[in-house]
């Protein structure tokens, strides 16, 4: 376990409100596999390990990720795995696989057609199925409860939230604040849009990375932590699991951060929890408020950070999973 691993390529499908494509993502994946491989002059036979993140609940069918494997052209048979989580966790698995020395390269992909179902209701499937799920609390309402805790505690204001939204998706904060509530305290601009999409990241061990691209982004550390599923026992005004993951990953001194925050107040919450000051560029990509392809948006944060990192810079990429930032992954990247 001594080899460093770098991000060498990133591609993502256009963020769209509703694709005509299938829930197995093939139509979104075929072109971006090609783009990501072409970026670094690789063919599918050069990839040592393939790992994906997606959800059957989003697709409404069992083993939906199996159909997605068609997009690879998996013959001769490939070395493949899948996580029922954002593909940032698939990247974690691929990172481990390369570090074991078993493979030199890995292609990680995530995809989701959120528009196929009622996303905020489908996400109730993440909750305790005995004592919470039977009430069908939806993802927007749970985020609203979290936002209220912070508003009541004076940790952020509705104007702070509107300013985050204006930065992520355009608009004027004053005008945004005049719009009606969607789920008081949230307005529509506080919630990430429903997005169909997919993302691909190619990883390579350092000795290969230099041959593949002039600008590899080295993963210096990656950690993830999870909090209790018991919502009431969590302090929802902060994110102890993100803080713990960032501490383990040695995330201090970053000047670029891509945060997987599908709600405006969560960007503020994470900036506060991680102690990110004004010197840190946060979500220069626009972040999830400009496009939130489920099960790909966390992976895309790593890809976006790797694409934007400047020589000598340290960047933090964050991914989340579960209700109200329950599980969090922090990846620290460096470029020479």
């Amino acid at each position, binding site marked *: 376990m001594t080899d460093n691993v770098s991000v060498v390529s990133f591609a993502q499908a256009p963020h769209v409100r509703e694709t*005509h*494509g*299938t*829930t197995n993502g*093939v*139509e979104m*994946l*075929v072109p971006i*596999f090609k783009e990501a491989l072409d970026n670094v002059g690789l063919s*599918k036979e050069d990839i040592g390990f393939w790992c994906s993140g997606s959800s059957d*609940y989003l*697709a*409404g*069918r069992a083993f939906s990720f199996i159909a997605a*494997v*068609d*997009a*690879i*052209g*998996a*013959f001769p048979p490939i070395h493949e795995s899948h996580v029922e989580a954002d593909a940032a966790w698939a990247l974690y698995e691929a990172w481990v696989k390369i570090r074991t020395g078993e493979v030199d390269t890995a292609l990680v992909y995530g995809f989701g*057609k959120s*528009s*196929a*179902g*009622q996303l*905020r*209701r*489908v996400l109730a*499937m993440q909750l305790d*199925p*005995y*004592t*919470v*799920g*039977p*009430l*069908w*609390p*939806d993802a927007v*309402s*749970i985020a*609203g*409860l*979290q*936002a*209220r*805790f912070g508003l*009541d505690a004076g940790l952020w204001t509705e104007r702070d939230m509107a300013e985050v939204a204006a930065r992520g998706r355009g608009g004027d904060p004053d005008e945004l604040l005049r719009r009606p*509530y969607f*789920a*008081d*305290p*949230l307005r529509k601009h506080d919630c990430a849009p429903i997005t169909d999409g997919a993302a691909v990241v190619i990883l390579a061990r350092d000795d290969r990375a230099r041959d593949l691209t002039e600008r590899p982004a080295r993963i210096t550390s990656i950690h993830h932590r999870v909090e*209790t599923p*018991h*919502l*009431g*026992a969590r302090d*929802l005004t902060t994110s102890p699991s993100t803080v713990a993951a960032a501490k383990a990953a040695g995330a201090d001194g970053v000047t670029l951060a891509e945060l997987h925050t599908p709600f405006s107040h969560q960007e503020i919450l994470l900036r506060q929890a991680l102690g990110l000051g004004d010197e840190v560029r946060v979500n220069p990509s626009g972040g999830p408020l400009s496009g939130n392809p489920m099960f790909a948006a966390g992976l895309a944060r790593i890809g976006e950070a790797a694409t934007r990192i400047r020589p000598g810079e340290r960047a933090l990429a964050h991914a989340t999973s579960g209700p109200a930032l329950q599980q969090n992954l922090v990846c620290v990247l460096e470029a020479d």
Partner: protein
Amino acid sequence: MTQAPLSAPLDIGFDYTRSLGPTLSRFVTGLAQRRIHGARGTDGRVHVPPPEYDPVSGEPLTDLVEVAHTGTVTSWCRQPEPLAGQPLQRPFTWAFIRLDGADTPMLHAVDADDVHTGMRVRARWADTGGNGVRDIVCFGPEDSEPAVEPRAADDLTMLTTPIHLSYRHSASPEESRYLRGLADGKLLGQRCPACGKVYIPPRGACPTDGVPTEEEIELPDRGIVTTFCIVNVPFLGQRIKPPYVAAYILLDGADIPFLHLVLGCAADEVRMGMRVEAAWKPRDEWGTTLENIDHFRPTGEPDAPYDSYAGHL
């Protein structure tokens, strides 16, 4: 002009029956009795609903504590357009409510127009018990919500939790051409531009090459049985009396078989390599589905030699 891909509603559901274990049995039994229990955590905090394992230490929690029907709102979010399955089907407010006697809040609905942090609320109970947290319909303002006494109820060890989800399922562009072809009585496959294999249904990605199939090939409605099984076991929703044969049918000119029924002969007469043809339903029953073909039946032609289909098994 290319038509938009076909799509259709896909509604799935299942009533999960969940065994409860010692901690949640007492919680659910208590609710049926109109009593609310929390669990005392290893740090002394009382959590409602009772977690089976401590949120911090992970220790099993079995020290249950009865708390009040009343409590205080600690956070709230309006739900102006309730979704299917939520506690109320008119505008309501989600809230975290710290019940008197508990240290951490529980999530539930409040039926009031002026919900605010610090508001005092009281549980409103369903007439029928035994549905776990749904035995509490919602919470109402403490002053106007009548107090309700506990009542007797038997011990519960199981809970039914219905899950119903609705989707719009889309066929791929290639599958849509195939399905529309079926509505016209045509069997449309496509050839992979890389390996030259003919797929029916055509595919958004050739599983060997990862590229969409392209050149359209109309295939005949006859071919061979590559492999088959005799269904002897009855199951829910079965439409044919066993024994009958489910077989892989390889149409002449295709490189991948599909699953269909072989009828028109005794089940034990079906064999690998047997020549079969489609038995179509009456034309006025056709739709965008392979069910337009009721089954395949033997043609009586000589069997195909094994070598001719060995590569398709």
